[in-house]
């Protein structure tokens, strides 16, 4: 179960973990239960269920995260137009309100499910599970889950996806990863979007952006691209195709944060 629950037991705290959990009694008759489980236990349980669905249907699930307005939907439109026609795509769109983004995706001829979260600032595994009921996973190769535009909250909630992709538009500043480290630390791939604007911006240094990602201990590839220039999309499309191919070849894909957690649990299990 540790493999998929995404809990964060590390060498620094694993001495606290007991194999069974314990219950102690205090003098006044109260009981203290030692638990040590992830606070997001229910979400993580649902996420594991979602991931199991994706694995069984051989669908690559990608969690797309960024601040609002960095071009997630535009990138998806451009990706749908440019990607190999043989690849079948669907999109789950997360926004506080409106069907606008799902309609943009449907206009490209691709199934899209809109989740409107009301005032919730992130998607969670339960919302994604409900949305999955509206999609035929057997008919898909890649599912993009466009998270709510927010560089804080989405980082804490596992959706059951395989990889995290973070967008950083060049109008936002190359130090965004340092300002929002929790989210950029989780990224398996960082896309520098709106790179067609670099010609007119003198304050965004792609090399500095990469350095800020590395400072978070994250070796993720950082790919510059522009949704308005199809020729810039090739490395991103290659990454998608090779990631899908790796999954289809039997590689067990998990977000990098979970792989780290699993490695620690493996150590734990043999101790």
């Amino acid at each position, binding site marked *: 179960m540790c493999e998929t629950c995404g809990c964060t037991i590390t060498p*620094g705290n694993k001495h606290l973990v007991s194999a069974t959990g314990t219950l102690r009694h*205090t003098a006044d008759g109260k009981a203290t239960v*030692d*638990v040590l489980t992830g*606070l997001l236990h229910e979400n993580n349980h649902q996420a594991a269920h979602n991931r199991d669905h994706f694995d069984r249907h051989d669908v690559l699930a990608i969690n797309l995260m960024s601040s609002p307005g960095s071009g997630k939907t535009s990138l998806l439109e451009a990706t749908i137009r440019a990607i190999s026609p043989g690849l079948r795509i669907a999109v789950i769109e997360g926004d506080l309100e409106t069907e606008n983004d799902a309609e943009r995706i449907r206009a490209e001829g691709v199934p899209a499910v809109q989740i409107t979260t009301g005032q919730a600032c992130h998607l969670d595994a339960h919302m994604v599970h409900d949305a999955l009921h509206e999609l035929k996973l057997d008919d898909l190769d890649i599912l993009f889950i466009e998270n709510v535009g927010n560089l804080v*909250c989405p980082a804490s909630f596992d959706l059951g996806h395989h990889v995290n992709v973070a967008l950083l538009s060049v109008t936002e500043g190359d130090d965004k990863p340092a300002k929002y*480290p929790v989210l950029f*630390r989780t990224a398996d791939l960082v896309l520098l979007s709106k790179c067609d604007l670099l010609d007119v911006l003198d304050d965004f240094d792609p090399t500095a952006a990469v350095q800020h990602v590395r400072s978070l201990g994250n070796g993720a590839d950082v790919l510059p691209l522009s949704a308005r220039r199809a020729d810039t999309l090739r490395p991103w499309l290659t990454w998608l195709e090779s990631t899908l191919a790796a999954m289809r070849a039997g590689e067990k894909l998990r977000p990098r944060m979970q792989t780290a957690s699993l490695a620690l649990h493996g150590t734990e299990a043999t101790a």
Partner: protein
Amino acid sequence: MHELAVCQEMLSLVSRIAAERGATRIDRIVVIIGPLSGVEIPLLQRAFSVARAGTPAANAALEPEICGVRVRCRKCGATSGASVSNLTCGRCGNWRVDVQQGDEMLLKTVELSGMADGAGQQAVATQSPTVH
């Protein structure tokens, strides 16, 4: 403000633990929160004061234990303290590190009361493991 969502999940979890142990009240909840978890403790406390109403934890205290960030360098092997926005090795500066501590978002202990006599001991014997 995802701390409210975190709080609601936590309350659901502790309420289930209390029910499994036959307790009617939760008096104290201890959580371990690391700076890399994305949870802000003052916001968690504020969310808890709202979310706990109507649950067995309605009068419970929430006690967060904060831990620092520590990383282990894959190159030189040193273990050092780090900051949230700079996780590089404190000795050699290498960015290839493994986080050893600092991303915790864990429920550590729950203090229960309102249990029938002996119910607690019985729960120990019958409870399946709750560590994940």
